[in-house]
């Protein structure tokens, strides 16, 4: 049963204001085209999560879609601090943003716990830091400290997370949603599997037979997936291993634009609201910067060695 659809339909049908979303990718495979569509559809009051966030989450926050963020980190990396993120927290622009802050150990573990049906998970970090002192919308449920019933040692437990929707961008998926990746994974496998339903955005839709040639690459099984969207260059300006490189130039454009609220709004108009979908976004990219720059992003190719699963 094919679940292939457009991003517009996938978001309209499965993402609602007030939802709790996991959105995968950090520089590697960010689900940018899904994020643009969420902004375009004016979805509001979202709670979002991922370990390590960058320009994609900064944009979603600046666009006013987010009220709560289960976070560890947000920056534009090489280009410094996330400006929309700062404006939201420092000045409440476009509105207040509530943060529940964890770390790149504890948050991935919470997603893993969510994926595995564990109610909570013990972690060894957080202690002795002020991250234990600040609690936001999770309140007393942010963490618990117990004396381990095994050895009496003080142990921090953090709760499992189960987002309403997980959105990931992957290299390839079959029409039913079996999704495959290779290269840097971040917390994408557990974030998606912790979610009650998954939207898979991919560089290419492949046949079930292609998936079956290398089933160890699959990170999400079809039965969790509600929509499959073929969205080439869907992670731009992030990258996808084997497909295209990071677009540092575009990252700089974003950083410059987002320095001011006006600049950010102009960026949103140009790259999100004035584009009806990913195709027109790419058309506009080529119109604006030239095909040469687009082509230069294309990845080189180097073969991995084939293996066999036969007996």
């Amino acid at each position, binding site marked *: 049963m094919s679940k292939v659809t457009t991003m517009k339909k996938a978001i309209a049908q499965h993402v609602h204001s007030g939802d709790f979303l996991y959105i995968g990718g*950090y*520089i*590697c495979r960010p689900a940018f085209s899904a994020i643009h569509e969420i902004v375009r559809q004016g979805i509001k009051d979202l709670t979002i999560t991922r*370990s*390590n966030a960058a320009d994609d989450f900064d944009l979603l926050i600046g666009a006013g879609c987010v009220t709560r963020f289960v*976070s*560890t*980190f*947000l*920056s534009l*990396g*090489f280009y410094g*601090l*996330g400006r929309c*993120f*700062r404006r939201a*927290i*420092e000045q409440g622009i476009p509105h207040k943003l509530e*943060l529940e*802050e*964890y*770390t*790149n*150990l*504890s948050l*991935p*573990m919470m997603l*893993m716990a969510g994926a595995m049906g564990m109610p909570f998970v013990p*972690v*060894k*970090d*957080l*202690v*002795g*830091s*002020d*991250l234990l002192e*600040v609690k936001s919308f999770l309140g007393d449920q942010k963490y618990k400290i117990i004396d381990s019933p095994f050895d009496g*040692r*003080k*142990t921090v437990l953090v709760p499992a997370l189960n987002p309403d929707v997980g959105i990931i961008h992957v290299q390839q998926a079959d029409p039913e949603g079996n999704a495959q990746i*290779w*290269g*840097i*994974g*971040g*917390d*994408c*496998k*557990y974030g998606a599997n912790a979610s009650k339903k998954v939207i898979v955005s991919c560089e290419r839709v492949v046949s079930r037979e292609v998936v079956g040639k290398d089933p160890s690459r699959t990170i999400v099984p079809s039965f969790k997936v509600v929509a499959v969207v073929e969205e080439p260059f869907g992670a731009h300006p992030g*990258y996808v*291993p084997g497909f295209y*490189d*990071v677009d*540092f130039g575009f990252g700089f454009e974003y950083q410059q634009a987002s320095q001011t609220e006006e600049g950010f709004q102009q960026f949103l108009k140009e790259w999100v609201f004035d584009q009806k979908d990913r195709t027109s976004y790419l058309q506009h990219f080529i119109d604006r910067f030239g095909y040469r720059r687009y082509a230069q992003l294309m990845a080189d190719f*180097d073969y991995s060695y084939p293996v066999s699963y036969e007996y």
Partner: protein
Amino acid sequence: MKVKPRYIKPELMACCGAREIHDHDVVIVGTGFPTMAANIAKHTHAPHCVLMQESGVFDARPRRPALSISDPCLNPGAAMIGGLVDVMGMFLQGGWVDVGFLSGSQVDKFGNINTTAIGDYHRPKSRLPGSGGANPIGSLAKRTLIIALHDTRRLAEKVDFITTPGYISGPGCRETWGLPPDTGPAVIVTNKAVLRFDPQTKEAYLATFHPGHTVEEIVENTPWKLKVADDIHQTVPPTDEELEVLHQVLDPNGLIAVYEKRGYV
């Protein structure tokens, strides 16, 4: 006519970092300095040290300098690629990481690091990125190497917010909180000096001053009453071997100079 200096400050700092790495160390790195430091070590006295990035990469073979822990160049040729749970959970929390590099907008005398907010947390003067991997690395790596700018704003008697625990409020604190034994900050490498931690008081003291700086200047630019080592001496400048590796193998285009613009002079 300007004479090209034998080395620049960021190179000296990278060498200071490198010298803290032992052979066979398992090192978790971010970008820039730490990677450079670890690679200098690997090419000189610690050929068997291995590097990982928290995003899920072990023993990458980048052909260009990585600009983030998820940089595309970390993928081809790595020995293992998984996700955050593999590196932060299975390797770091599992107890396998010897050395972690951290930097921060504020670092205090107990080696606590702030990358969360300047000013009051709830009404920050400046909101910073947050912990990311810093807190678990500082909590769980056996030795944390801290990189910082040396002035009275970046160094602090007490950070505004402890994102990453150093020795917290002094001796016994890590133990009380249940952090693993024999972990904690080993050194703060600044642009003026190398500070180490007193085993008794857990306070950072001046161990060596970089060439061109004086003890007085350093004490003046440190916001706590900085103790000075009995055997205080000048930081050993980059050796010929270190410079050769830096200039010919690791950074032929001198990209490390970008740190000069960030104040590492």
